[in-house]
């Protein structure tokens, strides 16, 4: 392999590389400078090693050309062929996100070095572009002065070569009419975007261009005012700027009303944009028109080995015929073989603009799709066949152009056979650089690789986005703001101009100017490798591999989806990016703090324990089923039975075994009372204590009645007291007739005064009358209640000394006696009979009359002893239990 020494770094670089693989310095011997004429090469012998996809493209193009030739004029073309995927690339109906893959761009690094043209503003739908305005103005002109473009708006079926051919008679030679500058400008631009030196072109290749230019010059006499703002100030290039904008889809050119430009220079300037080459601002050195005509074709073909001795090249038409299939392989074209003339050379242009869709369908205008369409073409052109390709028959002879099962576009880059051929030194020598590069390039994606997805999407038939009509179908109407050649549309001659304006601008094209980072397929810079850093170095990772990295697609996709959200509801439905995703004023909102309590494990454990405690408190404890016979109940029953049994036995038997110590103090007081004196008896006890008080007061009443014949006045402090009086008199045998009793009768010996209401006040009121109380010899208080007895004692004391001087005998129940003992001790009560105990002593003194106290005394004695024993035994048992518990605890 031959190597070239880099003039910059001095390192050896393979000769097929355009740039130094180390320092990316352009290898000057391979570049074509501005003004230089590329060396014409005959690469027809290399057709045998062309890739299958290229052969298929060519074959398909040939077939379509034949079909087109056989089709009657005006008949719409109906094709049953599958949509050409390559043609879909031209339409670029997809969004801007589907850009040219890096791997493809990497094939021709020079494209990255292009200076992005000023982003064209989105063309207006309703408003015709300046380009079309030209045709409007031309409509008013005489037919004789019609521009050559009038020939373009021919019925369907007309080929590009036809209208080019029709222009030839009327158009003067290109060089003669327009002069060198006009033709040189766009040719220079075309030649500028190739990085290699253009080989010498044959003069006859430029004849058709000259004719075309001459025709346009002849028909456009009045020079239309040129929009200064839209095009760069170049005297010779201004006329052709509008054509330049065709390829570049420059928005300013469309917006500004431009009159008809009859100049042939302008007419031909659209050819500049064929390859996406728009460099109007760059001055192009004057070159011979004939030499420059083929230079742009060199760029398309990517001439990489211009200096090599070109083999026998049949003609320029043959060289360009293979390109027919690039743009519109499905368009019916005349067979390339049958056209040896200049028209045959331009057949590829016809196919480029041929659409896959039936020509009968009105093709709306597609504004400026050629920016991206031509990008790929440029890339392909650089790495594909040079213009000096062998003629079509050479391919046809090989038989490789026969379309195999998938469409030609399905496997466009099957370079594996070519790589195999590289082993042959003979073939390697004859292989052009552009083919070598394609063969050696490791970044070429394999068929079916994921990197070709974009390619498959590009190949979709452009139904949603109508293909642009490159030329106005209606005479007099200006062409739409579309590139001169619409590769996605079929026959442009059958297009309706109205449909051009009705076509909605594709989304990708609208947003195209908004993407500054996207390299615009504008004019090709004369120095394509201005940015060396972006050049694909052989040692670096292939760009298509880099493009397959998910991070890139994820980032771009996310950014697009986040920044531009399409509204689906409300009045803003359908708008994108109207409402910002970031809430307004979100920065002013206070920072949100989490309400979750930050608790540690220990705190959480404590909280859980607390919750458990609370839950246990609220939960109902299961109640213990009460035993039918418990120990306490049994004990109670046992004690009750014991007491009942003992007491019953004592009473039944009438035992009088308990000793009684009689007390004379009580009898002495009674003995001191006058005879037959009235005695006031206050009945202040309840029926429950009637038995006790009757037994306690019995001996006293018996003595009073028996020895003193006292008259009893009974007054009760309770309502039931009146009834208790009768019972008292009965049970003490006072009211019983004699001899069983003393024979006291009510109203004679005793008086039941009844209930004394008012409590203390009643007592005070009763004793307050000294006259009433003064007649009583003694006051006998029968009480079971400390309070009432104290009230009576107090009120008697408060009644005055006369009343207080009266003897007060208190017969109390045993439960109230301890509390009344102080009054007896203090002398306020003269005598206190404390229950059955004192009554028994009193009764003993009276020889046990009436005998109740004595009858109860033994039973009371036994009962007290049993109680004492029960208390002692119970205390001892409790003490034992405590001792046992403590002993158990100590152990």
């Amino acid at each position: 392999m031959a190597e070239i020494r880099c003039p910059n770094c001095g390192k050896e670089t393979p000769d097929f590389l355009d740039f130094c693989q180390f320092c990316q310095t352009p290898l000057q011997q391979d570049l074509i400078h501005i003004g230089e004429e590329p060396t014409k090469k005959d690469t027809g012998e290399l057709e045998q090693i062309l890739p299958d996809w290229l052969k298929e493209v060519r074959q398909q193009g040939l077939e379509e050309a034949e079909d087109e030739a056989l089709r009657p004029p005006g008949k719409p073309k109906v094709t049953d062929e599958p949509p050409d995927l390559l043609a879909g690339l031209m339409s670029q109906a997809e969004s801007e996100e589907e850009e040219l893959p890096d791997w493809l761009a990497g094939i021709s690094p020079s494209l990255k070095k292009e200076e992005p043209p000023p982003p064209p503003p989105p063309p207006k739908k309703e408003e015709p572009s300046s380009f079309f305005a030209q045709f409007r103005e031309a409509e008013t002109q005489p037919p004789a002065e019609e521009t050559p473009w009038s020939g373009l708006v021919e019925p369907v079926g007309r080929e590009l070569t036809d209208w080019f051919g029709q222009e030839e008679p009327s158009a003067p030679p290109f060089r003669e009419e327009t002069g060198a500058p006009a033709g040189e400008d766009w040719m220079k631009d075309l030649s500028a975007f190739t990085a290699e030196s253009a080989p010498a072109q044959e003069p006859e290749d430029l004849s058709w261009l000259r004719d075309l230019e001459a025709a346009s010059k002849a028909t456009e006499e009045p020079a239309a005012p040129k929009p200064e703002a839209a095009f760069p100030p170049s005297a010779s290039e201004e006329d052709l700027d509008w054509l330049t904008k065709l390829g570049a889809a420059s928005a300013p050119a469309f917006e500004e009303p431009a009159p008809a430009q009859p100049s042939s220079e302008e007419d031909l300037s659209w050819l500049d944009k064929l390859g996406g080459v728009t460099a109007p601002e760059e001055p192009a050195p004057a070159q011979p028109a004939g030499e420059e005509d083929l230079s742009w074709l060199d760029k398309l073909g990517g001439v990489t080995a211009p200096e090599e001795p070109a083999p026998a090249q049949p003609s320029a038409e043959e060289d360009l015929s293979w390109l027919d299939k690039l743009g519109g392989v499905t368009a019916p074209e005349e067979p390339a073989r049958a056209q040896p003339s200049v028209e045959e050379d331009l057949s590829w242009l016809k196919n480029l603009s041929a659409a896959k869709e039936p020509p009968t369908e009105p093709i709306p205008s597609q504004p400026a799709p050629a920016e991206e369409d031509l990008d790929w073409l440029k890339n392909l052109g650089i790495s594909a066949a040079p213009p000096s390709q062998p003629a079509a028959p050479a391919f046809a002879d090989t038989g490789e152009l026969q379309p195999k099962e998938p469409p030609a576009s399905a496997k466009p880059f099957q370079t594996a056979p070519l790589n195999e051929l590289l082993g042959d030194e003979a073939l390697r020598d004859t292989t052009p650089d552009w083919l070598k590069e394609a063969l050696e390039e490791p970044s070429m994606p394999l068929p079916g690789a994921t990197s070709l997805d974009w390619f498959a999407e590009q190949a979709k038939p452009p139904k949603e986005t109508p293909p642009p009509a490159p030329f106005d179908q209606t005479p007099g109407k200006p062409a739409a703001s579309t590139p001169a050649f619409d590769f996605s549309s079929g026959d442009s001659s059958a297009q309706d101009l109205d449909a051009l304006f009705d076509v909605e601008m594709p989304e990708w094209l609208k947003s195209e100017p908004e993407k500054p980072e996207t390299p615009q397929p504008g004019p090709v810079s004369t120095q394509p490798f201005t940015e060396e850093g972006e050049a694909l170095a052989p040692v670096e990772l292939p760009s298509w591999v880099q493009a397959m990295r998910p991070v890139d697609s994820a980032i771009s996709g996310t950014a697009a989806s986040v920044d531009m959200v399409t509204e689906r509801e409300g009045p803003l439905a359908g708008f994108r990016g109207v409402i910002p995703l970031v809430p307004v004023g979100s920065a002013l909102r206070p920072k949100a703090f989490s309400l979750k309590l930050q608790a540690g494990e220990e705190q959480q454990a404590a909280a859980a324990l607390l919750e458990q405690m609370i839950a246990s408190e609220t939960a109902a404890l299961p109640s213990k089923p009460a035993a039918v016979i418990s120990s306490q109940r049994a004990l109670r029953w046992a004690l009750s039975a014991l007491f009942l049994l003992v007491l019953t036995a004592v009473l039944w038997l009438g035992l009088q075994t308990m000793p009684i110590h009689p007390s004379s103090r009580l009898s002495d007081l009674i003995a001191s009372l006058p005879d037959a004196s009235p005695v006031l008896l206050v009945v202040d006890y309840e029926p429950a204590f009637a038995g006790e008080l009757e037994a306690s007061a019995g001996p006293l009443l018996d003595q009073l009645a028996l020895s003193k014949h006292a008259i009893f006045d009974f007054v009760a402090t309770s309502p039931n007291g009146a009834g208790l009086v009768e019972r008292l008199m009965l049970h003490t045998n006072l009211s019983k007739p004699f001899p069983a009793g003393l024979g006291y009768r009510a109203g004679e010996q005793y008086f039941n005064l009844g209930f004394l209401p008012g409590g203390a006040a009643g007592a005070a009121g009763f004793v307050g009358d000294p006259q009433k109380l003064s007649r009583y010899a003694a006051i006998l208080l029968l009480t079971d209640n400390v309070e009432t007895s104290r009230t009576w004692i107090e009120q008697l004391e408060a009644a005055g000394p006369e009343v207080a001087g009266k003897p007060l005998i208190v017969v109390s129940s045993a439960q109230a006696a301890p509390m009344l003992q102080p009054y007896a001790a203090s002398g306020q009560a003269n005598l206190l009979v404390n229950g059955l105990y004192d009554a028994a002593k009193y009764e003993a003194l009276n020889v046990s009359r009436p005998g109740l106290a004595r009858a109860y005394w033994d039973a009371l004695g036994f009962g007290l002893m049993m109680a004492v024993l029960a208390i002692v035994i119970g205390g001892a048992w409790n003490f034992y239990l405590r001792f046992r518990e403590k002993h158990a605890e100590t152990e």
Partner: protein
Amino acid sequence: MPLIEFVSAIVGFVLTLMVFSYLIGDNPLFRFAVYLFVGVASGYAAAVIVNDILLARLQSLPLGDPALLVIGLIPLLLAATLLAKLFPRISWLGNFAMAVLVGVGAATAIGGALTGTLIPQAEAAVDAVDPRSLTGLVGGGVMLLGTVTTLAYFQFGAKRAADGTVKRNAAVEALAWVGRVFIAVTLGVVFAGVYTAALTALIERLNSLILFLKSILGL
């Protein structure tokens, strides 16, 4: 035995057994007996009040003497206003009568307590200490000690100690401890009196049952 006494004895015997059934536990027999006693006692009390109080006072009104009649009607009018307490809207009518009752009762109780309890008991406590005799001295001393220590027990004044604890004075604390002994003895005596009274009531009931049975049996 007369029939009325026999029936009364039988009723008394049955009701007594019903009350004793409470030793087994709360039972309907016990409740029936209790309700019966309460009802009979209330009815008897109401009858006594109406018959011995109201009717007796109305019958004793001095109709010929307007002045005494007015004075006699005043308690009747105040008693009628107490009936207004049954109706919330006119319950205020009984407020005056109620105020009279409470005021008179409080005044009577206070006057009687002061003149019948506090002063006489204080004098008696002083007189109980008789240094002239050993018994009087010991008895008086014990009574005085018991009185002082019991009062000291209900003295709750205290101060904060150096260690932060609140304690009563040591002397007061000692007296309170002695007073607690006297209180315990007093409560024991009261409990003994209650038990004695209850036991006496039981004995009386058992004796009545025995007498009834003996009367029935002719023993």
